């Protein structure tokens, strides 16, 4: 059984069809990349997967369960978390507070209004783990708004990771990260635990081909080609439509 599956998923905005008849299958433990030219409907698709947008038609299955009508914060509890193409962070909080918040929400302590934050060792231990894993230790007390962009990008992924998802959706994680900070980001993505299934949406072909074990190509809102990286790279139609322009550049 695939861990994440869409069945004839469709999204229309008035007369414009953003996604049409998308049957995406993500296997458990996969490093799955979703690529496609600008405007192919990648972000619309991820917004439907996470519940930000409601599909016009079709179903979304997570571990065999229909989650089409489940609200976003419930999907997080069911094991799916995402990052955003444009950072969506809590600028007034420090990385430590942000991560602590996610941990306490996941442990169901978020509605606890009496205990002071930080008094549970299970929470603080995990905060330290995440902060170390995402190389945020030296900036953990800084306000998020003041962090360098590369660190903010790491925090963006750290927040999603801390939800302990079984499926992690990364929406263009490397977008806009300066060359000097890129290596740190890529190494962190590489080091994500194998049991977490990753669906990566990315423009950067180097990253896609070094990371993914399966690639789906989205063109004009529909799935165009789907297969192992070598197949996709060889596919003449993909070259014509999309890869050609990118790879030759």
């Amino acid at each position: 059984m695939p861990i994440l599956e869409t069945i004839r998923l469709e999204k229309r905005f008035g007369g414009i069809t953003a996604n049409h008849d998308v049957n995406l299958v993500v296997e458990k433990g996969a490093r799955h990349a979703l690529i496609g030219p600008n405007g192919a409907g990648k972000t619309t698709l991820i917004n439907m997967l996470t519940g930000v947008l409601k599909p016009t038609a079709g179903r979304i299955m997570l571990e065999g369960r229909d989650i089409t009508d489940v609200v976003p914060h419930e999907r997080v509890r069911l094991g799916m978390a995402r990052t955003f193409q444009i950072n969506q962070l809590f600028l007034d909080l420090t990385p430590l507070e942000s991560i602590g918040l996610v941990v306490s929400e996941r442990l169901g302590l978020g509605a606890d209004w009496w205990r002071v934050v930080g008094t549970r060792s299970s929470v603080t231990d995990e905060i330290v783990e995440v902060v170390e894993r995402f190389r945020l230790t030296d900036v953990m007390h800084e306000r998020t708004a003041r962090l360098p962009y590369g660190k903010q990008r790491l925090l963006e992924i750290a927040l999603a990771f801390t939800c302990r998802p079984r499926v992690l959706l990364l929406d263009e994680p490397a977008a806009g990260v300066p060359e000097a900070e890129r290596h740190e980001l890529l190494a962190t993505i590489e080091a994500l635990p194998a049991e977490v299934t990753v669906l990566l949406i990315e423009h950067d072909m180097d990253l896609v081909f070094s990371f993914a074990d399966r690639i789906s190509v989205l063109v004009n809102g529909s799935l165009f080609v789907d297969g192992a990286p070598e197949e996709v790279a060889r596919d003449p139609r993909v070259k014509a439509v999309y890869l050609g322009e990118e790879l030759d550049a």
Partner: protein
Amino acid sequence: MTVNTLNAKNLAAPAANVSAYLKSRARWSPFEIAFWVFAFATIWLFPGKHLILKDTAILALFALSLDLILGYAGIISLGQAAFFGLAGYFAGLVAKYGIVNEPVVALVLSGVVAAALGFATSFLVLRGSDLTRLMVTLGVSLMLGEVANRYSNITGGADGLQGVDIEPLFGRFRFDLYGHNGYVYCLSVLFVCFVIVRRIVYSPFGLSLRAVKGNPLRAAAIGIPVKWRLVAIYTVSAGIAGIAGALLTQTTAFCSLDVFSLERSADLLLVLIIGGTGYLYGGLIGAVIYKFLQDWIANLTPQYWQFWIGLVLVVLVLIGRDRMRNWIGTVRGAVAGVGVRLLPRSITLGGAAPDGP
């Protein structure tokens, strides 16, 4: 270094560090202790000022209720008077008809009634922009005001609720004309409510509110039920506003339609613009400044005092809180050299500028 290679020993030190840091956020600072010691000292220091101090304490509590939703959850409201007024009338009516005689019990019940109204109307303010929220909250308080006006056989209408007889506090302390017992009562209630609000703000729940305020989209994407958190805090805020309203009725043995007035809600925004939002003391400090400024100017020019209040407001907003905070920061830096912490961290770190109109 990845997590896998970290053994428990390596983890222990930073974990203790993190824990200490998180806890230190919630520690009472010397400024706060000094603030409350001084507040209670005013009982003996200014016995002649108890009436205005009592009104100040009520206004401060009322402003605290708005700060809780505005400063911590980003909900702007022009209708806190709805809760203030409802609980004010409730406290007056239960005392008048002798349903609940003990003031403290009646006070708590009034808070509960206001919180119930808050819960019921919270769903109206969940959606929409700041402007929508301003109008919806304003609308609710206007409607309640008219309902109170319409049922004048119960509320006394334009004449106000007459014949309210408040029993002595704990059966011993009668509310006197000079506001002595009233002030001690109001200040104590303010303190108790403040401590509760402070706990809430520094809890995981309070942290999640700041996240919701900062970025509701992401808050939902990390599993926070945004809607229910807002409903919860709006309900708490309404309860506190209600307690403030009940205090006014109990200490004056009177309640009139102006408890629902737009001015009462608008004054509250003024108080928070003066004092700042999002660090808990904004409403308290703002209330003190507002009340005493009003009192002082009214003594100078009884007819035109609002002119000067308006001027102060314009200057305050134009100079901007950030700039003033920088001045405070400079002073604080100088004082810190002597080893005294003048102001809490939260003023420089967490005190967001008010989102007032």
